[in-house]
Every structure is written in structure tokens, then in C-alpha cells.
């Protein structure tokens, strides 16, 4: 009964996603047997961790009927600026994280206020703010990576437990569980669904909808901050090129996972499943030596397809 609550509506979509994942892995295994070895799969999954964190924030935003397209910029900023604070010292790690997190929380706050109080379209607001943040990143770092990750951070980014389970995956799974619990067991989560389903009804039931949405944007930025630090730990320093355009892929993952764009329906389990599917797909495309441009075109096409399929429900 309880587990049914967590899987909720995304049931069908999630099943499809796992089926697709299995198929893709099958094809991968045929083309390159070494690819589907557990060690390699876990390595692949480790690359999904930042994606997974970003997708948490996006899921929350879309559940309330909004969207956050500044996630890419926040992740890049966190990694770049974070590494300049860390400078390779473990002692600096926590202060660096807190500083960056505070900055990004303020950023998310601005997003939320602009969207709720000023009525600015969430797409335009977060795109514009993202552009600004990208600019600030460049201004502060000149495009060059300064500073490095500390040993602890590197351990989080690349280390394995029992020489097998990557730490970052454990982190992600823990976060996923927390998100699921929050969404389905807390009043906060309930209110998120209510606001997404019908903001008016929620307000008339006494919910502070605007405050909730602002909180969601703050959380989204914080999730992207974590993602940025994880990337930094993985690569060893900050980076401008995350290898993917996460503002698009996170939207794709959220929609594929069964969270509807108009809000109120869905959850993180579906999104996480879609993250896995997309990561595995990336792996396949890499094996097939498909260049990044073509990869982007494929992702774009998938997104359009998913939009088309899920739009059948919107009359």
C-alpha cells in the first residue's frame, strides 16, 4: 500500500523506461560485451549523478507547474567558484560549500520572487537569470579553472565503497529516497502537488502558494549546487563544459518520467528512471561513436517526441 503510493501515476511510464533501458543495455552488450560489466556500468551510472541531482530540482519545479532553466548555469557556477574557494584543502570544503550554497539559494530566491510576485514567465525568467549567472561565472574566473577539488571531495566524486559502489551514487540514492519521502509523506510535499494541480484551489484552501514556489526554486538551485560540487569532485576541478545541456535533458527526464508539465502529477522515481535511461542511451551512442552534435539532435528529437506523446492528454 505504501509502495504503491510512491510509485503512483508514473507506473506505466516507468515500466516503459526500464524496458527501454534493458533493451539498450542488451544492444550495448552485443556490440561491446565489456561495456555491460558491473564495474563499467557503475562507472557509467556515476556520470548520471550530477544529472540526477539537477533532475530533482527540475522535478520539484515542474510539479508546481513551473520550470527551472537556470540549472545548467548554477551547476557550472558552483563547480567553478567552488573550486576557487576549496583550493585543494579539505578544511575549506565545508565553508566553500556553504558559501556557494548561500549564493545559489539567493539566486533561486530571486527566480522564485520574479516568477510569483512579478508574474514573469518562468521560462524567460530562469533563462535570463541563467544567462546572467553564466556571465558572472566568466567574469569571476575569466574562463580559466582556478583551484582544485580537495581530497575529500575527490573521494566523494570518484571513490568507491568496498571498492565497488561509487560514493556519489550512494549520495544520489540517499537524496532520491529523501525526495520521495518528502514528496509523499510530508505536508510540504502534499502542498507541492496541490499547488501544481491547481494553484487557485490550493490558495483557496489556505496554502501559501507563492512561498511554496519560491522555496522550490531555492531547492532547485541547491540541488544544482550539489551537482556542481560532485562534478568538481569527479573531474578534480571546476569546468565550463558539463558535456550536456542539462536544462534540456533535465526537462526531458522529468517529462519522460511521467511528471506532467501542467503540474500536480508525477514524482521523482519516474524522473530518476528516465535519468538512468538517458544515461544508458548516451553510453550506447558513445559506443557507436556518434558525435556530440548528432547526439544533441537525437536528444532534441526525443524531447519533441515525448512532448507530442504527453500532449495528447492536454486538451
Amino acid at each position, binding site marked *: 500500500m505504501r509502495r504503491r503510493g510512491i510509485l503512483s501515476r508514473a507506473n506505466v511510464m516507468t515500466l516503459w523506461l526500464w524496458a527501454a533501458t534493458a533493451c539498450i543495455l542488451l544492444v550495448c552488450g552485443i556490440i561491446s560485451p565489456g561495456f555491460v560489466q558491473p564495474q563499467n556500468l557503475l562507472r557509467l551510472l556515476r556520470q548520471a549523478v550530477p544529472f540526477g541531482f539537477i533532475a530533482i530540482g527540475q522535478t520539484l519545479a515542474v510539479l508546481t507547474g513551473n520550470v527551472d532553466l537556470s540549472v545548467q548555469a548554477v551547476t557550472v557556477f558552483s563547480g567553478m567558484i567552488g573550486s576557487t574557494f576549496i583550493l585543494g584543502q579539505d578544511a575549506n570544503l565545508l565553508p566553500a560549500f556553504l558559501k556557494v550554497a548561500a549564493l545559489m539559494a539567493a539566486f533561486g530566491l530571486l527566480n522564485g520572487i520574479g516568477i510569483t510576485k512579478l508574474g514573469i514567465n518562468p*521560462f524567460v525568467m530562469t533563462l535570463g537569470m541563467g544567462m546572467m549567472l553564466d556571465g558572472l561565472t566568466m567574469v569571476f574566473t575569466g574562463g580559466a579553472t582556478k583551484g582544485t577539488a580537495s581530497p575529500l571531495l575527490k573521494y566523494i566524486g570518484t571513490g568507491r565503497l568496498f571498492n565497488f559502489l561509487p560514493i556519489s551514487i550512494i549520495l544520489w540514492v540517499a537524496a532520491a529516497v529523501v525526495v520521495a519521502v518528502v514528496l509523499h509523506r510530508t505536508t510540504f510535499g502534499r502542498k507541492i502537488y496541490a499547488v501544481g494541480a491547481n494553484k487557485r484551489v490550493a490558495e483557496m484552501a489556505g496554502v501559501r502558494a507563492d512561498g511554496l514556489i519560491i522555496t522550490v526554486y531555492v531547492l532547485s538551485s541547491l540541488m544544482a549546487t550539489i551537482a556542481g560540487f560532485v562534478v568538481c569532485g569527479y573531474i578534480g576541478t571546476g569546468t565550463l563544459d558539463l558535456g550536456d545541456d542539462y536544462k534540456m535533458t533535465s526537462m526531458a527526464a522529468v517529462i519522460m518520467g511521467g511528471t506532467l508539465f501542467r503540474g500536480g502529477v508525477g514524482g521523482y522515481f519516474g524522473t530518476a528512471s528516465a535519468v538512468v535511461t538517458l544515461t544508458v542511451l548516451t553510453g550506447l551512442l558513445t559506443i557507436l561513436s556518434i558525435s556530440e552534435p548528432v547526439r544533441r539532435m537525437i536528444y532534441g528529437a526525443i524531447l*519533441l517526441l515525448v512532448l507530442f506523446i504527453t500532449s495528447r492528454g492536454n486538451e
Partner: protein
Amino acid sequence: MTARGPSLPSAGVLRRRALNHPGFPIYVILLITWCVAWTVAPSFRAPNNLQNLLIQTVAFALAGLAQTFVILAGDVDLSVGGIISIVECALPLIMRNNTGSILLSCALLLAFGTVLGLLSGFLVTRIRVEPMVLTLAINFSLLGFALFLMPFPDYSKVIPKAFIQAVTGKVGPIQTAVFATVAIAAVSWYVIYRTRFGLHLRAIGADKETAFRAGIKADRIRIITHGITGFLAAVTGLFLAGRMGTGDPTAGANFSLDSMTAAVAGGTLFSTGVGSVVGTIGGAFLIVILGNVFNHLGVSTFFQYVLRGLLLVFAVAAGAVKKKYQESRGS
């Protein structure tokens, strides 16, 4: 009572019309910015700086015009950047060094851009998803395609000198491209404010229901409008290719947002059917001036992005606040 022919409106009416014109605020801001820039940055006053400003404005103005059309029709088209990128990257690949090839390539690319626009318009009217999301996704694919055409600026693919001359040449002190832009703006203005199509376009953007009741075919107009947007985006791409001298897959990406900034700052509001071609040009000019000033002040060039993002957010915020204010007054 017989109707008199058009008589000259009184000074009072003219003044009120100017004050209420949606493009008015941007020109005030432009004037202030110009004065501030003049006093604050000495190198800003250099005689050829104005030429510099004008030529830079061309791209933003054309992209802004492209966006103005769709916003007036009640939509948005974020695939502008993608189309610009594709045209910019495809040009060096297909244009050969003879007049025939130059003309043909231009025609082909313009047609291609138009078709891409029409496709966007078709999808937007058929798939019941917000135009923002849809065109964003389309843009993503288009940018990927541009990257595919030219993964990195390839200087071996040479653009014919004749074409570059045509784009960057001068007639007297002013560049031909500037003249061309003014001409395009004038034609756009005519289409929007003097033709039936333009009127219907604005009607749809302002009140789809009423327009429908009057027998206006909204879907068809929207698709055509997106086609126009694609066309203007292709023109922008041609210009950029000529000016840069090479293709660059990343140059076009930001134009999706910048085109919105120019249009919204110029007074074109979402979902109102209210807009201004003249204002959009002003918005484009503002983007350029601000960047130029900060350049002359020795500020990091990366600050451009911060500026542009800030400008976009400001412009849209101002528009949203204005709309709220008007709605509460119950216009």
C-alpha cells in the same frame, strides 16, 4: 455629414500618441544611456564608434524583428538562434566564388530558414504544448544540427570575398547592411501596421476569441508568421556569416534570448498584440550601446552576458508589471 479627408492631427493629439507609443520608453532610456556613455567613456565619442555601434546593431535588430512578429501574434519562437546558427554554418559549405553561386546560396538558405520557421509554426499550432517549450526543444535540435554541419569554426571553408564585401561594404559613411536593415524594418512596419495580414496578426495576439469570431483564421496566420520569423532569422545568419568571415556554430545560440530582449525592451509585450518595430530597433541598439560602453570602460567582455541577461529579465519584468497594472485598472 460627409466625411472629411485625413486632416493633420493637432499638436496635442500628436504628443499624446507619442507618449503612449509602446516604443517611447526605450528611446528615453536610449537617450539617457547615450548621454551617460558620452560623459563617462571618452573613447565612446570616437567618430567611428557610431559606425561600429550601427553595424553591431544589425544582427540584434534583425533577430529582434523576427521575434517581434511572433510575439505580436501571441506566440514566441526560441528557435531563432538555431536557425541563425544553421544558416551561418551552412553558408561557407555551399557558397562558391561566383555570382551565380552566391545568389543561389543566399536564396536557398533564406528558403531553408523560412521552411524551418513554417515547421515550427506547424508544430506549435498542432501540438498542444506551450510555444516556449516546443520552440526551445526545436532550438536544441537545430543547434545540434548546426554543430553537425560545422563542429568548430573552420577557416578552410572560405566565404567568397564578393559576399563579404556586399555585407560589410559602405555607401558613403554608412554600411550597406545598415541600409538593408532599415529597409527591412520599414517593410516589416508596413506589413504589420498597414496590411490586413498584419492587423489580423495583432488581433490574434490581443484576443484570439474575438479574432476567431470575426472570421480570422488564427492557425494559418500563426504558421505564416513563424515562417516570416524563420526568414528574418536566416537573413541574420547570412549577415553574421558575412561579417565574421567564417561559420561559427556557437555564435547564434544566444540570439534566441537576445531577440526576445530587443523586442520586449522595445515595447512588444507578450499576449497583447501591442508592439513596436521602431521600439525593437531601439532595444537592439540599447543592447549594443551597453556592451560597447562597458567595453570602453575596460570591463571584462564576459560582463556582456551578465548585462544581456539582466536586460532581458528587466525588460520582461517591466512588461509583466505593466500588464498587471493595466489589468487591475480594467482597461
